[in-house]
């Protein structure tokens, strides 16, 4: 929570003024019983006259009016601070989330991130608002009333002190007992929710296995246990009202009795007794408010903790500053020179601005030709898994080549291609582009080089044009149409009445799976990337369209280096190089024909898809 306090810094004034004005309002309220006492003692008892009574009543109204003004000011400042707080928090949180690395995103999970951004922040906003309004007022009235009682009469003050203590114990005991019970019944309610959802999503399977009756039986059981726990906690929290009522009224009895004795002793008057009686009535309402405030604050604290957890995560380091000094890497200067290999001394601590528009491969110091992309015994392990997701992968790719990557689910295909734009880092080994370790390349520049069509074909709400411009900000219609042509997606756009202005619903729901795939390929092509990565982007395409797409990619005038991930050999059989992955290891690297001869796994995959044809 303390970490989040800084979001109130811009609203310091409001955060101080809100409780202060509330305090003012409370003060005015505390004057009321004294004035009433004066009216009774002086106005009635001593016959001070109608003028006195009328004046006193006018003061009462004036106190109310001033109180109202103070309250309005307080509510405004509190709302202003709370709303501003949550705005800045949301901004930072969103920014932070966008700065997380792929592995952090994996670890957090989308639903959690969305809950943090929405309901947790909202809850926190309510908490801040309520705290600013009430945390001064309620205790002030409760203890203020007690102090006033002590001022009026010590004995009466003692009665107040004892009743407040007893009230606190009762209220908080009930809350302490019932809150965990409420949480328990909430868990049971979640169970009911899950069961309802499940019975709907699984309706076909459940009916196919004739499980309807079992479903009903198990639901009834869960439902009954929910009701039981609700009733149990209900019985306890139903104690709150009667118990506090009893305590307050018994206290009033004690107060009147003490008052009677003190009057007999000549220490106080009847009016004072009435004032004390009124103070006692004020306490209860505020104490209940305080209890509710504490519940809300506890909840908000939990939310704040969860939000702080995310804010404390380190952001992805895109700077390209090498963590360890690596001396042997040639560094590409910011000034690209066409057709000329650029060599340079390593400049430590300075990110490499990678704008490598090379026509020719660079030549390393040893005279050896530096390949465009090189994997040097790369291993990747997600967290603490027993098996490496990628294990000791070594291969190199020349500019303009097409690389096919094939393997079963979980073989490491997506992991491999995600290493190139440095979405994940290698645990050991190096990924080099033009001989430079990707860790040392400015992340933004690196990602600008790559055009990616991810496995999950997502489009975003907006128009087709806006989606295409994700690839390249401000891309012209001509550029977009060209990319669409290559991706075999022109017909998709032309089939829609709006053309490039056709609205895309969130997630692209108004396009079919195959259409989305082609559009995401086009999106990756718009910026004419040097490295094009297609992660299983043709799985929903029929064979003919898939073939046309591959042909169009081959004929691109800017000759990108292409990585194609696929499950089917037909998509990659014409690649210059095919990498066969199995359980994170490269079990074969070569061309289609070579692999058919040498690689058992590849053969098995291929023949399972083409039984008759053979090679």
């Amino acid at each position, binding site marked *: 929570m303390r970490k989040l306090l800084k979001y109130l810094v811009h609203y310091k004034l409001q955060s101080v003024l809100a409780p202060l004005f509330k305090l003012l309002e409370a003060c005015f309220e505390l004057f009321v019983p004294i004035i009433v006492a004066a009216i009774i003692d002086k106005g009635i008892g001593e016959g001070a006259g109608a003028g006195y009574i009328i004046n006193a009543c006018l003061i009462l109204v004036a106190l109310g009016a001033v109180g109202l003004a103070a309250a309005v000011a307080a509510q405004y400042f509190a709302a202003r601070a709370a709303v501003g707080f949550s705005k800045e928090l949301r901004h930072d949180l969103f920014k932070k989330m966008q700065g997380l690395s792929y592995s952090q995103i994996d670890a957090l999970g989308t639903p959690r991130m*969305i809950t943090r951004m929405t309901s947790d922040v909202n809850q926190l906003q309510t908490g801040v608002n309520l705290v600013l309004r009430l945390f001064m007022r309620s205790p002030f009235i409760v203890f203020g009333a007690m102090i006033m009682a002590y001022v009026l009469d010590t004995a009466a003050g003692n009665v107040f002190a004892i009743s407040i203590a007893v009230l606190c114990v009762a209220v908080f005991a009930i809350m302490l007992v019932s809150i965990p019970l409420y949480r328990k019944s909430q868990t049971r309610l979640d169970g009911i929710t899950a069961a309802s959802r499940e019975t709907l999503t699984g309706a076909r*399977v459940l009916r196919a296995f004739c499980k309807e009756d079992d479903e009903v039986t198990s639901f009834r059981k869960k439902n009954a246990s929910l009701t039981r726990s609700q009733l149990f906690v209900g019985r306890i929290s*139903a104690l709150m009202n*009667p118990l506090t009522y009893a305590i307050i009224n018994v206290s009033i009895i004690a107060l009147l009795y003490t008052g*009677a004795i003190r009057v007999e002793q000549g220490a106080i008057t009847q009016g004072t007794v009435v004032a004390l009686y009124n103070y006692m*009535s004020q306490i209860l309402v505020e104490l209940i408010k305080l209890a509710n405030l504490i519940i809300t604050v506890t909840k908000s604290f939990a939310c704040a903790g969860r939000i702080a957890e995310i804010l404390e995560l380190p952001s992805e380091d895109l700077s390209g500053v090498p963590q360890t000094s690596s001396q042997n890497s040639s560094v590409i200067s910011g000034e690209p020179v066409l057709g000329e290999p650029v060599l340079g001394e390593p400049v430590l601590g300075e990110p490499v601005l990678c704008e490598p528009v090379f026509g020719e491969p660079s030549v390393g110091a040893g005279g050896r030709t530096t390949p465009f992309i090189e994997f040097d015994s790369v291993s990747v392990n997600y967290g603490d898994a027993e098996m490496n997701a990628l294990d000791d992968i070594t291969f190199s790719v020349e500019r303009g080549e097409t690389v096919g990557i094939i393997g079963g689910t*979980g073989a490491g295909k997506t992991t491999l291609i995600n290493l190139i734009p440095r979405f994940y880092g290698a645990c050991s080994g190096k990924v080099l582009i033009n001989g430079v370790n990707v860790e040392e390349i400015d992340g933004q520049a690196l990602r600008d080089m790559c055009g990616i069509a991810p496995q999950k074909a997502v489009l975003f709400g907006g128009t087709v044009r806006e989606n295409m411009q994700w690839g390249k900000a401000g891309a012209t219609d001509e550029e977009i149409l060209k990319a669409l042509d290559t991706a075999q997606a022109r017909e998709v756009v032309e089939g829609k009445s709006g053309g490039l202005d056709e609205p895309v619903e969130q997630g692209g729901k108004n396009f079919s799976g195959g259409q989305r795939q082609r559009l995401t390929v086009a999106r990756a092509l718009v910026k004419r990337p040097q490295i094009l990565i297609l992660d299983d982007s043709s799985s929903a395409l029929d064979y003919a369209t898939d073939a046309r797409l591959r042909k169009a990619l081959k004929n691109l005038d800017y000759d990108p280096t292409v990585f194609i991930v696929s499950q089917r050999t037909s998509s990659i059989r014409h690649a210059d190089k095919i990498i066969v992955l199995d359980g994170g290891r490269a079990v074969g690297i070569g061309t289609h024909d070579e692999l058919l001869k040498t690689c058992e796994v590849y053969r098995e995959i291929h023949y399972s898809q083409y039984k008759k044809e053979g090679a």
Partner: protein
Amino acid sequence: MSKATPRTSNIQNPQTPNRRSTFLRVLKQLKRYKFMLVLTILFALVSVACTLAVPIFFGRAVDLVGEIIAAPASGINQSTFSAIFTEFAVTGGLIALACLSQWLTGVLNNRIAYNTVRDIRDEAFSHLQKLPLKFIDSHPVGDIVGRMIADVDQFCDGLLMGFTQLFTGVLTILGTLVIMLVINWIIALVVVVVTPLSLFVAKFIASRTYSLFKRASQIRGEQTAFIDEMVGNLKVVKAFSHEDENLEKFDGVNERLEKASLKSIFYSSLVNPSTRFINSIVYALVILTGALMLAFATPLPMVFTVGKLTGLLSYANQYTKPFNEISGVVAELQNALACAGRIYEVIDEPCEAPDPSNAQELEEVKGDVQFDGVSFSYSPEKKLIEDLNLQVNAGQRIAIVGPTGCGKTTLINLLMRFYDPQKGEIRVDGVPALDVTRKSLRSNYGMVLQETWLKNCTVRENIAMGKAGATEEEIVAAAKAAHAHNFIKQLKGGYNAVIAEDGGNLSQGQKQLLCIARIMLALPPMLILDEATSSIDTRTERRIQDAFATLMLGRTSFIVAHRLSTIQEADLILVMKDGAIIERGKHEELLAKGGFYAELYNSQFAV
């Protein structure tokens, strides 16, 4: 709050209940608990009566205090003190009675509300089991679950509040009014005249803030949708380096949200201070009139004392409070009725037509399946399957291919009787499918769908779904046959590992293997495999194909597949397009024919 926002209703019944009929229905629902209802009303009466009586006795005590003469230890106040003690004794009794009856009302109210809610949920859930697939397919799961959970909860809250606050509130207002009139009708009149002002102010503010709230929640919805979209696809966002543009857009919405929430929060928070102000005016007026009467001791038409004035003050306070509460409760109740209406809509959805009373139990099926002039479509405007005729002999392997939307899945829906044809007849072993019980028909099919579904329970229970009372050996054998045994062993807990909701902790392929294991255990006479191996990698798939091949021996099988290699060995290939079978025959025949199938098949070898 958010629950109260009107949801677009997409369950529409011809007899959509109006508020009145919903109300009557709720009353009917409560009938089971009428005894408790009577009791709770009785207890509420007692507690209100006691609560109202207590200030009278306190007032008397205050008056007695006024009679005490300041003379310590003189003993002259002896009788006054004993009179005060009598008042205290009575008050103590009243307080005890009020507490007890208050608590009992609370407990009874809980019991009525929670039990009613349980009844409704049970009813709704068992109704879901009987609803036609058509309803489930055409309504978002979230909507139905929302009705079952959030709406019912809201209804429960409304019911509880209605019982606890509405009833006691009305009683308190009436009781207070009567008592005030009895004590001093002049002051009572003052209170009655001025109080509505506070209600008016509260209403005025509420009506003004409603549109502000709507605006704020609309912008919040917009923001949530944006977060949902961008955070949900964060990897893509990052891959395209679109973070800055997103943040800019986000800030725009955020800015608007800030302005709108400030307005709605500020204006709505004015209700409390304003009503408090009005109440303090009432308070001042009561004191003014009361004090003037007492000070000038004009011949009053009633006996009036300081004690009575104190009593009146607390009554005046009590009198205004329930008004504010009641206006809240009425809104809550209206909302609760709307919620009840929504869940009743689900309960009132017509069920699947029950099996005819003379329906046969389908046993020992050989596996002949006939489609005789079957026509079916999901909506009358869009024709799908028309006059389909098909004869499948026992033990045959039927492959169905064709582009998406051609009716492959529909065929399965009809076979399983998830949907019934509008025209024509499907016969199994010569018996019309409509003449057998759904359960016996379905248990003769083993179905594996592309969209895997696993229950949120253990792996063992999921596999055992295929066969009630299966032994451990049978389950393991089935898992082995489905090539699932090895990965199950690797799960934490093995066969006792609990599968997360939506199978989150398993890969798509693993989920499919478990679904296949279910079938391997059930060993039904007929099989339906809809892209059953689409998510399994090709090597495992090949091994499973062998297991399937054994399984399919002697079993009528319907196979929908994307990968043409898996269907080449079928006895009959049906090529579907736009709901019609455009080609049928064996692989070689169809290839030789050079039609749609041949085109589809050859395209996979194109460069």
